[in-house]
């Protein structure tokens, strides 16, 4: 799993080099690493189970071994203590007394080297008896003490292999605890941060993992012999016992190594190594019986290590003063370890060391140790133990769900296989109708790959583009990338990234800076499930373009909006402002009111322009008609504006067109009212194609007759407004008919001139 650096590697052997890179990279994919370790753990569990099942069994299902009452035979005669084992009928061998020492859970619990040697010898004799009975095809015989004080002989069948269902619960507990501990340790090894982010391997993790390995293997080996019932090959048992001894102490050494360096580095590594060496010497002395038993017995070593651990935890407690995060981690880790190991020591190791019966069976004692490990796995979610990242928790959570599903699957299968034919049918129906769909649902929810579709990619890109605040934009961008690639971690890139590209042989994807967001390095695609590929680079590039295009659109839209606002502001200033000023300075009440009313009318139209409500030409004409008739009548004129084709024109007109058309019409009407002779004012408005033809006639006053076409101050204004709309305005007297005529021809869709 060595780190391969592609950039600096010589190109002498490109093919092999590439293969090595590929393997190295794949090994760095956390999920792959984790899978590999879990397979190893599963192999260890399976090997333990296979080895256990390969042992012969005597009287499976008939004998129970009880620490307090010895070996109990349960048959037709009722429960009765087993006193001795006799060879099969016809075999020549001395009876073997069944003593508490023979059925002791752990050989290391015996008080002397001699007792231990005797046990192994007895086991060898038992094995010989069992093999002999197997060869003859006859059962062994057991001598039991009946309640009435008499003794009796019973048959104890021998099988070459241990039936799985005859294994005691303690064995399964040990196997299960070992498996859980291994899985947790595997997670910590596979998901540690150092490997993927270039940070050093966290302090103390090694000790924690060693402790896990020690606890798990000691659980497996203890499971092998403590569930033996009666018989087990002496050599195998001796080996298992030795391994158990070593790995139990490895657990203790791992723990001391952990607290020597975590949360604060207290002791140098050489102290830990020295301690481990001392323990190794003790193991050697005990196994080879070099020193007095009571000096080097495993219980003594365990007790010493336990004292060392407590001392280190206390020292850590002092050392973490002023480091609240470390203190919190220590409090959780230390407390759970002290509690878990404390239960083990107090209930199993200590009584044995003091020559008493242990209070808790050794098998069950692995439960608290397993709890330490589970507790630690949970704790790091909160305290980030060993600097593991959040994403590691996600993987562990998913792993937990998978494990749970498998456990439930097994439970369902076992239940099914155990139920009778009638209940079997209903159980199958229940599984089919409820369990399997539910299981699929859970699986889909958690593990289905949700590759975003085009619509959601687009929506995400638009969201990024429309964030104004740079921080919000960066966040939205990161969110979009996370949705697309589900990376385990996202960090700012170390160097500028001109274009999206793959880095670290597929472990990371570099994405260029985007708006307010810095260039990013996405680590581990799909939650550490795969390497980044060329398709990811293409997708990242496309999304980048999409965001840029959306940003340009937004800028254009904003510019248009800004133009519109400026236009409206100008109208407010020019039209409303001018009328209000006129009202302010008007000398007479009548014109003042007129100016104010006009300002109000302007305000109304500008406000409706601001509201952005679309207006059709017919609605606009109707409004002008109603407004101008009121004005005309108030001044003693009459207005005749018959329905024309413009009254049926449903063409939408722009705010600008509305403003200009209204202004021209008002101006023309003001002129007619102010300068024309009394009489009927006639207005027509027609629509031809996209052209509006407007015409106003009013009776010509004597003073008007000689006036030029630019009558009145507003005439130039009208002219310029018409031109701005791309239209043409004529205003002139028709002396022959005695009228003044204003005509306007204006396109309805033209964009106003002079606006950007």
């Amino acid at each position, binding site marked *: 799993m060595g780190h391969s650096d592609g950039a600096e590697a010589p190109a002498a052997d490109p093919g092999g080099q590439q293969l090595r890179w590929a393997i190295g990279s794949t090994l760095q994919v956390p999920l792959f690493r984790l899978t590999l370790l879990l397979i190893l753990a599963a192999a260890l569990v399976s090997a333990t189970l296979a080895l256990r099942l390969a042992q012969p069994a005597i009287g499976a299902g008939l004998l129970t071994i009880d620490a307090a009452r010895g070996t109990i035979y349960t048959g037709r005669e009722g429960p009765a203590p087993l006193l001795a084992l006799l060879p099969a009928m016809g075999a020549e061998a001395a009876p073997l007394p069944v003593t508490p020492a023979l059925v002791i859970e752990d050989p290391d619990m015996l008080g002397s080297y001699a007792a231990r040697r005797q046990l192994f010898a007895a086991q060898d004799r038992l094995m010989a008896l069992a093999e002999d009975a197997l060869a003859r095809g006859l059962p062994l015989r057991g001598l039991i003490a009946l309640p009435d004080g008499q003794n009796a002989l019973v048959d104890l069948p021998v099988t070459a292999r241990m039936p799985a269902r005859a294994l005691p619960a303690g064995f399964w507990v040990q196997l299960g605890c070992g498996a859980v501990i291994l899985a947790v340790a595997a997670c910590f090894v596979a998901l540690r941060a150092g490997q993927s982010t270039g940070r050093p391997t966290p302090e103390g993790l090694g000790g924690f993992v060693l402790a896990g390995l020690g606890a798990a293997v000691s659980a497996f080996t203890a499971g092998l012999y403590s569930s033996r019932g009666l018989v087990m090959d002496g050599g195998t048992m001796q080996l298992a016992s030795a391994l158990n001894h070593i790995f139990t102490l490895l657990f203790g050494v791992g723990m001391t190594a952990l607290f020597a360096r975590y949360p604060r580095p207290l002791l140098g590594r050489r102290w830990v190594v020295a301690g481990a060496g001392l323990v190794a010497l003790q193991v050697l002395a005990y196994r080879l019986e070099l020193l007095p038993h009571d000096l080097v017995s495993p219980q003594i070593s365990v007790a010493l290590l336990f004292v060392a651990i407590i001392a280190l935890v206390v020292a850590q407690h002092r050392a973490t003063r002023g480091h609240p995060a470390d203190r919190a981690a220590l409090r959780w880790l230390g407390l759970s370890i002290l509690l878990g190991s404390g239960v083990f020591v107090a209930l199993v190791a200590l009584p044995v060391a003091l020559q008493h019966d242990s209070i808790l069976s050794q098998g069950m004692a692995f439960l608290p140790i397993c709890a330490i490990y589970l507790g630690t796995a949970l704790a790091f979610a909160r305290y980030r133990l060993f600097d593991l990242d959040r994403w590691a928790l996600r993987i562990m959570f998913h792993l937990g769900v998978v494990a749970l599903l498998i456990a439930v699957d097994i439970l369902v299968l076992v239940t099914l296989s155990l139920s009778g034919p009638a209940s079997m049918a209903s159980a199958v129906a229940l599984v089919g109708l409820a369990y399997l769909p539910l299981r699929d649902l859970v699986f889909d929810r958690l593990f289905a790959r949700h590759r975003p579709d085009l619509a959601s990619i687009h929506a995400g890109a638009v969201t990024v583009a429309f964030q104004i605040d740079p921080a919000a934009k960066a966040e939205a961008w990161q969110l979009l990338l996370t949705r697309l690639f589900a990376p385990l971690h996202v960090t700012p890139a170390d160097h500028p990234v001109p274009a999206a590209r793959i880095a670290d042989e597929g472990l990371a994807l570099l994405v260029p800076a985007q708006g307010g967001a810095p260039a990013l390095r996405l680590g581990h695609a799909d939650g550490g499930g795969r390497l980044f590929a060329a398709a990811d680079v293409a997708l990242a590039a496309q999304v980048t373009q999409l965001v840029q295009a959306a940003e340009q659109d937004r800028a254009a839209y904003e510019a248009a909006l800004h133009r519109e606002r400026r236009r409206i502001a100008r109208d407010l200033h020019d039209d409303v402002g001018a009328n209000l000023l006129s009202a302010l300075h008007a000398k007479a009440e009548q014109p003042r009111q007129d100016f104010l009313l006009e300002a109000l009318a302007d305000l109304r139209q500008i406000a409706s322009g601001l509201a952005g409500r679309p207006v059709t030409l017919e*609605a606009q*004409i109707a409004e002008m008609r*109603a407004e101008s008739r009121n004005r005309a009548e108030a001044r003693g004129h009459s207005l005749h504006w018959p329905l024309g084709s413009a009254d049926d024109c449903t063409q939408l007109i722009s705010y600008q067109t509305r403003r200009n058309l209204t202004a021209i019409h008002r101006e023309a009407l003001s002129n007619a009212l102010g300068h024309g002779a009394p009489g009927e004012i006639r207005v027509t408005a027609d629509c031809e194609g996209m052209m509006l033809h407007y015409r106003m006639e009013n009776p010509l006053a004597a003073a008007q007759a000689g006036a030029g076409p630019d009558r009145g101050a507003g005439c130039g204004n009208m002219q310029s407004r018409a031109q701005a709309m791309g239209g043409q305005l004529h205003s002139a007297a028709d002396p022959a008919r005695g009228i003044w005529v204003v005509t306007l021809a204006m396109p309805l869709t033209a964009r106003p001139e002079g606006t950007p």
Partner: protein
Amino acid sequence: MTDRPQAPGTQPALPHDGHGLRALVIDDNRETRSWIAETLALALPMAQVDVAATVAEAMALLLDAPSRFDFALIDLDLPDGSGLDIIRAILQHGLPTTPIVITIFDDDATLFEALSAGAQGYILKGVKTAGLVEQFRRIEQGEPPISPRIAQRMLAHFKALPAPRRTEDAGGCPAELTPREGEVLRLLGKGLTMAEISRHLGISVNTCATHTKAIYRKLNISSRAEAALAADRRGLI
């Protein structure tokens, strides 16, 4: 239509000096409130005009002596709520008060909502003094105003009514417009006056005004029916 029982708010025309007329002016702008009250009092010297500035004040006055007011002139935007609530309360309590909206602009969306809710007309603030009295007189005589914009909104409203559903009020009057009423409304939407419309359709101005009143009433009926229908669809009733 005249033999129908009087809907709340359609009072018989009053004497021209406003004798016996009682009106309540509700507007939070003090100047506007006084202007309207004083203008009415000057034009109709025998009328009694009260004022209120908030929804709460108005409700207290209206509910204190339910038969007191013939007209309530209601600004929609009030500091403690909407004038719409006052209009609804008047109809809900069956008060003999004709609700009339006071507004600056006649193209306000809230104005249309108020008319749908049962307001019998509206008065524009942005007019000269003479115009205000004229507007009030017209409503009083049963000629409520319909600006082109309001008429266009009404047309859209009636067009959107579900065609097969025949909604009727208590007196059996359908909520849909008759073709003639529809035509009157369409021409009002073009900005034509009553006189122009009556000429255009060859009917009397009075008939035209009757149509306008009918349009107002049907707007109210159909709006209530629509609200009930919407509530029904949402499972509220």
